[in-house]
């Protein structure tokens, strides 16, 4: 049966980013980063994953702070809790879709614990992979467990784990960047290009690297924005889909638009073809229908983690129509 006690661990608590990157350099994939722990600890308890070392990053002050400067924009430390983002005045005034997206994650207690960095680096979710060790005794290992088969897509040649994090579509729509620290260096990468689409290793990140902060450009006037997420049972289930939209202009002529989705496929998707199609157009039933067709084609929704591809396509249609309606005036 399942043993719900945590396995033996070595616990580390760096106080600075330098200490953290040194640990990461030395231990690489032997260590797991503990921020909110809301996903990691249950996975360790279920023996879904194993790790020798746990590295708590919440004692690094730099990682737990939010700051806003007019010229630089918003900087959110990777270990800032979702609750602190929701409650932050600058977020609710200038980056409302981020607040809404953070608000849509799980429930009260988990938002008090879970962090933005954790949501961004959330492991891919899968109806099969996330089963217990006991359950896996009766099956051959899938790709993510080091085997050679995918149970989600029959005959699939790669891992089709779902990219399920709710805040990511908002971050992509807001053109957010990540700061990733390695030993003695750091680099910046757009959230949009951070994901690989391979469930085995969903993030563009070296074994010796850690996400330390999120940067969002200064808020510009003239954009309207909206976020929606659908799931079967509000807080318990992962999303059928989440959709973020930012629009500049009016219903008569769309000057600019950004559309981002997550929770539908192996990676978050910015619907670039639909954006190109919509820029300069007037919003009508015809353009909307064509845009929806393009978005669904770009996202190619999967059937797993609580929703069929059919339902995902339907919900993308409903959410996109509702969001356009809410931002077009």
């Amino acid at each position, binding site marked *: 049966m399942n043993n719900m006690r945590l396995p033996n661990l070595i616990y580390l608590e760096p106080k600075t980013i330098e200490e953290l990157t040194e640990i990461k350099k030395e231990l690489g994939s032997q260590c797991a980063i503990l921020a909110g722990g809301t996903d990691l600890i249950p996975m360790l308890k279920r023996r879904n994953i194993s790790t020798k070392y746990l590295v*708590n990053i919440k004692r690094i002050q730099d990682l737990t702070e939010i700051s806003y400067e007019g010229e630089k924009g918003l900087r959110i430390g990777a270990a800032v809790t979702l609750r602190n983002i929701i409650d932050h005045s600058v977020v609710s005034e200038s980056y409302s879709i981020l607040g809404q997206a953070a608000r849509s994650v*799980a429930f*009260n207690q988990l938002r*008090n614990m879970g962090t933005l960095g954790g949501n961004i680096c959330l492991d891919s979710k899968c109806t099969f992979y996330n089963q217990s060790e006991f359950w896996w005794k009766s099956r051959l290992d899938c790709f993510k467990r080091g085997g050679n088969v995918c149970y989600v897509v029959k005959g699939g040649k790669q891992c089709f784990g779902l990219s399920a994090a709710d805040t990511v579509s908002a971050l992509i729509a807001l053109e957010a960047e990540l700061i990733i620290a390695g030993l003695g260096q750091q680099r910046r990468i757009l959230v949009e290009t951070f994901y690989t689409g391979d469930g085995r290793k969903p993030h563009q990140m070296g074994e010796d690297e850690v996400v330390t902060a999120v940067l969002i450009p200064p808020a510009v006037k003239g954009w309207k924005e909206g976020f929606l997420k659908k799931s079967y049972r509000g807080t318990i289930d992962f999303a059928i889909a989440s959709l973020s939209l930012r629009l500049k202009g009016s219903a008569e002529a769309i000057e600019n638009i950004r559309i981002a989705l997550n929770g539908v496929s192996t990676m978050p998707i910015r619907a670039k073809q639909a954006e190109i199609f919509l820029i300069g157009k007037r919003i009508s039933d015809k353009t909307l229908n064509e845009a929806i067709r393009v978005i669904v084609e770009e996202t190619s929704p999967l059937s797993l983690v609580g929703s069929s591809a059919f339902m995902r396509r339907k919900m993308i249609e409903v959410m996109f129509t509702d969001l356009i309606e809410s931002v077009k005036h």
Partner: protein
Amino acid sequence: MEKRLIKLWVNGEPHEIGVKPNDTLLEVLRDKIGLIGTKEGCGAGECGACTVLMEGKPVLSCITLAMDADGSNIMTIEGISTGEELDPLQKSFIQHGAVQCGFCTAGMILTAKELLNSLKNPSIDQIKDAICGNLCRCTGYTKIIEAICAARDDAK
């Protein structure tokens, strides 16, 4: 595994406890401090039975490492009454028959307690939203919501 001494303020009282890295806050509260009002339900952060207030905010003690909680203020269900006098929320739960098997009650009351502390006049929707991570498998939600509403109204 290396044991370490951590310091916790539980219900206002300081405790110094030797813990192992794989001890959860829930295990420390129940097995080392003896406060068994906090329950273990699913053990995986899904049901809310193990909710305690950490620095005033509801968190799940079954997926919080004890070492991670080092230095923090914890409030459990044992800490919200004053002496023999129950908290108004506890009284309201009793009066409204909001306790059936009682397993979710401690977590439910602590979550509601924080809600009433942070919002003076929460709507029914806000109450439902706040407690949606606390599962009651007797499904006595109607009476639970009535009890929280009554405590809210009495506090005005």
